[in-house]
């Protein structure tokens, strides 16, 4: 028992140490890294990835952490593209911001509903169900946009892409606000606790009288909503919708998996995911500041996945 705690403790400390080393390393090597403006930039650039990774985290919490049979939402990146397209198309056709935002969020939740239905009612493996839904999203996005850039300009979008209090980007504030709300809902509420119970041991949770299906289904709806919010953010950042959102999928998976090494019991948490997202953001930013080719970043992301999945599964095997 003590050995196991020792191991997980080592992994967590190791990850935090790695985060610190990277941070301090860049602070020394890269001029301008520690400037408030640059840090705000990184938080701002992490907003879209962060919101999507939060959705992924909730799904993994509710569905269990097993990479093959557990909870996963591969449709998130596709959902982002679709929601951004819905927003942009409506906005371009003259609809107001309110309608466009409501429609984008509704389209996100609708995607979440399809996922929930496929996973809970049809009992399809989440990995396959959400993969199929990812394709549906990409298809509908193509129908809406004809694979073209759809331009959207509105006061809401320019406000979202602009600066807020203290001259810091609005999206950075929004990311932190959403993280705060989700930490309260997932980490500090009875519902959140039940979600962990369902994901941790489904049969035990069912025996204890928890509404397992409702929790699992609900996690996909939350994830879908996150996709919708990400879509609106993306429309703000890019002045509309552009093809190619699907590329984000790997980063979302990395962030959600990496997040679990920041928690005491190696479980996914919202705060851990936020740290992971910022870690990836600082890594990309630092590389550019010290003028290392951006080509290294995707390689580093791949190495991170291997490292995290490898070590956590090793430690988990010892725990069981």
């Amino acid at each position, binding site marked *: 028992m003590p050995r196991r705690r020792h191991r997980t403790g080592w992994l967590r400390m190791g990850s935090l140490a790695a985060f610190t080393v990277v941070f301090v390393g860049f602070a020394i090597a890269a001029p301008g890294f520690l400037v408030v403006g640059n840090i705000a*930039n990184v938080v701002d650039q992490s907003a879209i990835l962060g919101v999507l990774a939060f959705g992924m985290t909730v799904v993994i919490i509710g569905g269990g952490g097993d990479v093959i049979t557990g909870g996963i939402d591969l449709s998130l990146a596709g959902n982002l593209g679709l929601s951004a397209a819905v927003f942009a198309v409506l906005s371009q056709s003259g609809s107001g911001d309110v309608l466009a935002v409501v429609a984008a969020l509704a389209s996100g939740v609708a995607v979440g509903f399809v996922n929930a239905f496929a996973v809970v009612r049809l009992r399809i493996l989440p990995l396959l169900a959400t993969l199929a839904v990812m394709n549906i999203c990409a298809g509908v996005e193509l129908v809406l946009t004809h694979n073209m850039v759809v331009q959207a300009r509105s006061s809401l979008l320019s406000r979202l892409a602009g600066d807020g209090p203290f001259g810091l980007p609005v999206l950075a504030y929004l990311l932190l606000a959403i993280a705060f709300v989700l930490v309260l809902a997932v980490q500090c509420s009875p519902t959140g606790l039940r979600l962990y119970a369902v994901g941790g041991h489904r049969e035990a949770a069912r025996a204890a009288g928890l509404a397992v299906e409702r929790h699992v289904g609900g996690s996909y709806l939350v994830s879908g909503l996150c996709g919708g919010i990400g879509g609106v953010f993306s429309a703000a950042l890019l*002045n509309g919708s552009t093809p190619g959102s699907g590329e984000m999928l790997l980063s979302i998976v990395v962030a959600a998996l990496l997040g679990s090494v920041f928690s005491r019991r190696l479980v996914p948490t919202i705060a851990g995911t936020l740290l992971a997202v910022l870690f990836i953001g600082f890594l990309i930013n630092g590389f550019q500041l010290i003028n290392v080719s951006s080509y290294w970043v995707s390689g580093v992301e791949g190495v991170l996945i291997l490292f995290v999945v490898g070590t956590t599964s090793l430690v988990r095997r010892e725990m069981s």
Partner: protein
Amino acid sequence: MTKLIERRYYYEMRTLMLAVALAITVGGARADDAVTARSPALSLLGKTVGITVIGTDHYWDLRAYQGQVDEVRRLGGTAIAVDAGRNDSRQIAQIQTLISQKPDAIIEQLGTLSVLEPWLQKIRDAGIPLFTVDTATPLSLNDTTSDNFFIGEQLALRLANDIGGEGNILVFNGFYGVPVCAIRYDELKEVLKFYPKIRIIEPELRDVIPNTVQNAYTQITEVLNKYPEKGSIKAIWAAWDVPQVGATQALLAAGRTEIKTYGVDGSPDVVNLIKDPDSPAAAVVAQQPYEIGKAAVDNVARYLAGDHGVPLYSYIPAILVTKQNAAEVQKTLGQAS
């Protein structure tokens, strides 16, 4: 009939005149270089130039990017070069970080104008001189590019002439959001106004990135099935040459080599296709991307040295490559193996 002959004569004369004009421009460009070599040498010593490009997966993009990076180094400066890997949001993030790095100038290459414009404005707001490669925007102090009006017109005239001024053509128009592609497409439409018997088949085709070649192949194969009789399609036009590769392969595979393909950029593999007498690839307008990248950096160096008379546009000559001149042009472009 006389009208047709007159028209042919007119176009032959016009092509001849343009060839002469081109020869003069190319010669002129060389003379310019000579002047530059003699004038006080350009230098970027102690200067940092940020270079942001949307992607380098296409021959043109890569060569123009290399041209910039090499020239900054040659002139003794430091290049912070970032490649967004064809991802708009990544390019925005890279531009944000570039602004915070406060380089002496930023060069932006290609990308989606509507996405970029607010962020290019932020570069200007930060007081950093902005230059562009192939991105036409009033926010840029200088855009170094090919003359895309000339490119579009040359390609369209050649196409119209080759198919005898009548018939159905297919058009790839997936990147109208990219200004250079829009110019080429609009020039095609402009020329076709005077060839009422040439009809663009609707709906137009949409070329995509990535998987451009495979996607173009599939789309063309499908359309060929819809138009099985020979002569029902005369030519295929694309605003760049990667869809042209896919289209050409699809024509070969379907045995429909009576259809000709047209494109822009002049990647080495495409120029080779044009040279091949059996290939349905009929023409490509070849640009000189490496020279374009190099010239953009030279403009930056001139500007930073205090010469604020840098023109709004610098045009690097492009060459129409056909079956007749392909071998020769390969040598001119330094592509001959």
